[in-house]
């Protein structure tokens, strides 16, 4: 049975409040917080980027389970903010965890769902027997143009999932995807910030694809929302996942543990994966989890997971071996907009 062998998360410690960003742009913070349901977002340190976050997340995954890194035959890093246009982040991660050189690696881009696409690729390689374990990472230092609506939510963070067959902590029963050519959000090569179609990102983008993949999966395996203990959806803000959950018949309780966006922001490729990690942090053996990611452009990957006894088998798996999502969200250091601008490299420094 293919499934999750271990997972790890990393979130930078810095936060900026929506009120602080709104102050700079003369916007009404109450309106923004009311509309988005987001109150603060994570900010990377000066020297943190997608690669360092991916490495931290991968290392946290391996802290929880004793895995010979040489059994990891593939590393995929999904991101919208790879530090290099040419030179894979995945190689850095593979090297950092000791998985090189007998491994394949690649960076993946599919807006906010590149990480879950990596999980699917790893599943294929594991099921086919080509590799024993594969690591799929979603990591971003998300971009949002100054003053744009995205700036209030674009956050930093990542999650890493090791996919394999041997004693998974959660079995992946099934996955499917719903993909179309829909230009709701994009960043052209060489451009610094993404652009988006405003309200077009809603119904024709997020809602069509998330519902499309979710309903497709539930139809394929004859399940309904009531069959799951938890559900996780891509969370660009708090409004969209709450609404789509309701449309699909999931309750507020089912999505609660995985809805991390209000105090984290949108970590793009990390978003639904950190939501899944937060849910696994509190899950018990037997719990069934429904996950649907979303990437603009556009597509959604849906997953049906079942938590196994292995998650509580302390000989094999140490749940407290690395920080939980809750741990990582605790005790933040708040920065003002000037520090935020420095951390995000918006000042041109003299050599």
């Amino acid at each position, binding site marked *: 049975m293919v499934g999750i062998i271990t997972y790890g998360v990393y979130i930078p410690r810095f936060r900026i409040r929506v009120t602080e960003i709104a102050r700079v742009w003369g916007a*009404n913070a109450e*309106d923004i917080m009311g509309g988005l349901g987001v109150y603060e977002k994570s900010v990377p340190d000066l020297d943190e980027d997608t690669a360092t976050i991916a490495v931290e997340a991968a290392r946290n995954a391996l802290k929880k389970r004793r895995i010979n890194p040489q059994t990891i035959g593939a590393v995929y890093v999904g991101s919208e903010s790879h530090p290099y246009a040419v030179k894979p982040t995945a190689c850095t991660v593979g090297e950092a965890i000791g998985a090189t050189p007998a491994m394949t690696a690649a960076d993946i881009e599919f807006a906010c769902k590149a990480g879950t696409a990596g999980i699917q690729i790893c599943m294929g390689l594991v099921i086919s027997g080509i590799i024993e374990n594969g690591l799929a990472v979603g990591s971003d230092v998300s971009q949002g143009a100054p003053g744009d609506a995205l700036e209030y939510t674009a956050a930093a963070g990542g999650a890493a999932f090791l996919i394999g067959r041997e004693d998974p902590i959660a079995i992946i029963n099934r996955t499917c995807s719903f993909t179309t050519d829909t230009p709701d959000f994009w960043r052209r090569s060489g451009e610094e910030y993404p652009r988006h*179609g*405003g*309200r*077009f990102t809603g*119904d*024709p983008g997020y809602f069509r694809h998330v519902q499309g993949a979710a309903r497709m999966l539930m139809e394929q395996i004859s399940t309904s929302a009531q069959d799951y203990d938890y559900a996780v959806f891509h969370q660009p803000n708090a409004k969209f996942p709450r609404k789509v959950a309701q449309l699909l018949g999931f309750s507020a309780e089912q999505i609660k543990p995985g809805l991390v966006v209000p105090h984290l922001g949108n970590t793009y490729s990390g978003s639904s994966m950190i939501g899944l990690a937060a849910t696994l942090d509190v899950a018990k053996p037997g719990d069934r989890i429904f996950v649907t990611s979303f990437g603009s452009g556009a597509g959604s990957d849906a997953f049906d997971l079942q938590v196994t006894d292995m998650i509580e088998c302390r000989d094999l798996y140490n749940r407290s071996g690395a920080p939980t999502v809750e741990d990582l969200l605790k005790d933040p250091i708040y920065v003002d907009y000037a520090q935020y601008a420095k951390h995000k490299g918006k000042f041109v420094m003299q050599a």
Partner: protein
Amino acid sequence: MKDVAVIGVGCTTFGEKWNHSFRDLFIEAGALALEDANLSGEQIDALFVGNMSAGRFIEQEHIGALIADYAGLATKHIPSTRVEAACASGGLAFRQAITAVASGMSTIVVAAGVEKMTDITPGQTVDTLASAADREWEGFMGATFPGLYAMIAHDYMHRYPLTREQLAQVAVKNHFNGARNPIAQFQQEISIETVLSSSLVADPLRLFDCSPITDGAAAVILAPLEIAKQFTDTPIKVLASAQASDTIALHDRRDISTLDATVEAGKRAFHQAGLTHRDIDLVEVHDCFTIGEICAIEDLGFCTKGEAGQLTEDGVTALHGDLPVNTSGGLKACGHPVGATGIKQIYEVVLQLRGEAGKRQIEAERGMTHNVGGTGATVVIHILGAC
């Protein structure tokens, strides 16, 4: 001059129509109007289409020929003319069609309006709409339409007894009507609290004081009244068609709280029709912002200056009040695809006069439409009556 009648009407649903192109919209509206008039495209003699800014909204000019072509009329070589007067483009297209039929130059004429506004960013849309104001003296100084209408509202509220709640009631009333209109963009009722707690756009106007960005198209078919019964049992007669202009910049007006072009065109329309205000059973006014409806009711002469707020609060302008205003939901709730709005107003009045307005049906024999371009630099008014 021949008497003119409306023999068929059609309208798309209004909203963010992501899956419909500009062409899809006008073809759908046109086909609905032809079906309503029991006509085939071959019988059309001329076409007038109101469109404000396809050049900027979808980078397409030469709309007249485009529409004739995609309506399948290219081989018939009919005259097809685009008419532009900003948000009054639709009303003006209808007026041009009337003159074509009344003069005897054409017999069966289509007047249509279409706008596809959601293909560009909201910022670009706001700027495109701002081109209906004076670009050199207003636009370049940063004025947008919410800003200009906010100045009207400020001036009005300083001089006349209009409360913030009364202004909100305009939106509440129009959403009530929109909730009974199957083509409306917003079919939800709202409360005064909804308006007062919505985001501030341009003080004192809040989000729910403003009409939305909308895709949509409407078409109506005109013919000489003398042959109208060949096509329909319920022709609607055009009783008056009036148009007036004013300064394009708001600051050049005699009085910024009174749209003199509305006053003038209104007087001309009543004179032409030989009617008074008491003869009008419903009026579709140009409520691009709630203050626009307040000014329109007064400037058309339905009450004296300063009274429209109280009339609105008292329910006089409500669906079953003494003077129903914007039974369609108006621009606020039905939506405002700028070039199509003037034709949609005709569509609504025709449905009401025919008794086909469903859940929002009122008793009506005569109805008026009031279509404004810019902040009142162009006003087009029509009066229609059941035969």
